[in-house]
């Protein structure tokens, strides 16, 4: 070890920044897309007829039964065989989004079903349509209720984004492996990776807590 940790850190700063950027990009896109898909699946799960409910339930349960790593590898390898050519980055985002959507749908179903029945009846009594009831009565309460779980899922997605390094997306983990491959400061740089992930996760958690307090019913 001829050069110190901080020297090596300084030399590799741009690589690390790029890794952080990729990690955030992958996580953010997956969460946004996953939430969008998950909303629809969650609605089908709550309000659908028997058939759509069955489909949504099957989707949710199957995705939740498969480890994220297997989802990522499956999407990466299988999609190219059936003729859909996605880059590693796209495959990674797709699989994380699918994983996220299954969690969101389950959470949304729970949130919507927890809205007291009396409120739905009251909404009906004052003449709101189903759609109005959903937008103005059920959804705001459900969203407020699922916020803490949603934040947890977001942190899980950031953590899951480490696994896309295995299909060659150059995010924090893979950047660290490249750096370690050059200078062999294994412990220091993996600890640094842990610290970076901790800071990302912790700030998401704190922001979530803050938003939770802001939107709470006083």
């Amino acid at each position, binding site marked *: 070890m001829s050069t110190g940790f901080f020297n090596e850190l300084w030399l590799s700063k741009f690589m690390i920044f790029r890794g952080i950027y990729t990690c955030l990009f992958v996580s953010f896109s997956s969460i946004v897309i996953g939430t969008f898909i998950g909303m629809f699946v969650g609605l089908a799960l709550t309000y659908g007829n028997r058939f759509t409910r069955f489909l949504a339930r099957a989707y949710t349960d*199957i995705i939740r039964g498969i*480890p994220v790593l*297997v989802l990522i590898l499956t999407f990466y390898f*299988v999609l190219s*065989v*059936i003729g859909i050519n996605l880059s590693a980055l796209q495959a990674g985002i797709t699989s994380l989004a699918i994983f996220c959507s299954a969690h969101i749908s389950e959470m949304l179903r729970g949130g919507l079903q927890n809205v007291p029945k009396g409120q739905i009846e009251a909404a009906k009594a004052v003449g709101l349509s189903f759609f109005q009831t959903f937008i103005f009565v059920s959804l705001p309460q459900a969203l407020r209720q699922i916020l803490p779980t949603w934040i947890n899922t977001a942190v899980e997605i*950031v*953590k899951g984004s480490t696994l896309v390094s295995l299909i060659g997306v150059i995010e924090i983990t893979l950047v660290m492996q490249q750096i370690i491959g050059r200078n062999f400061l294994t*412990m220091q740089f993996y600890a640094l990776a842990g610290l970076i992930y901790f800071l990302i996760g912790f700030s998401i958690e704190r922001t979530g807590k803050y938003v939770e307090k802001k939107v709470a019913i006083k």
Partner: protein
Amino acid sequence: MGYHLDYAVIWRSLHDLFYGLGLDLYMALFSVALGSLIGLVVAFALVSKRKLFRVLSGAYVTFIRNIPLMIIILFIYFGLPDAGFTFGEIPSFIFALTIYAGAYIAEVFRGGILAIHKGVGEAGMAIGMSNFQIIVHIKIPLLIRSVMPALSNVYISLFKDASVAAVIAVPELTFQTRRINLETFRTIEAWSSASVLYVASCFLIAFMLRRVERRVAIPK
């Protein structure tokens, strides 16, 4: 496209897949058992009256919950040998998963402890039990019975996390599947089989845990 499904390869390597699944279960079971013990101790530290315990256990839980499992594993498997601690692949994975599990399980237990009615502890005090006796004989049995549903969700997700062991070449299910995929190019067959095995095991574990839950549930 000209891709014909051919599961013959999978049949031939079914033994490897099941061996991998067994290894996953073994590692998960080991870590879950140890992690539950850690979780129990940490959970009582989280609600302890002493500030030092609260700070230390809180730091452990927040820290580990925000660090990806893969980083923990890479650190333990590749990093710790630099400091003179060398473990094999499976022990280091079990070590990593245990630390990881401990934080999640502690959080579940903490919720359970806070939900225990205050009167229960006071009743114990009234009949002359020490603090330790109250925890061991009253709080822990009540706690385990009440948090079982939340606990089984964590257990299932820890079983799924065992797949991450593939990154340090533990020959578990994901690793075997990737090997079969790369050796035979039977991509769809390999990954669909692995997914079916994982989903089926999760259902089976969930089913068994539901039975345990029903059995230990506190009657209303």
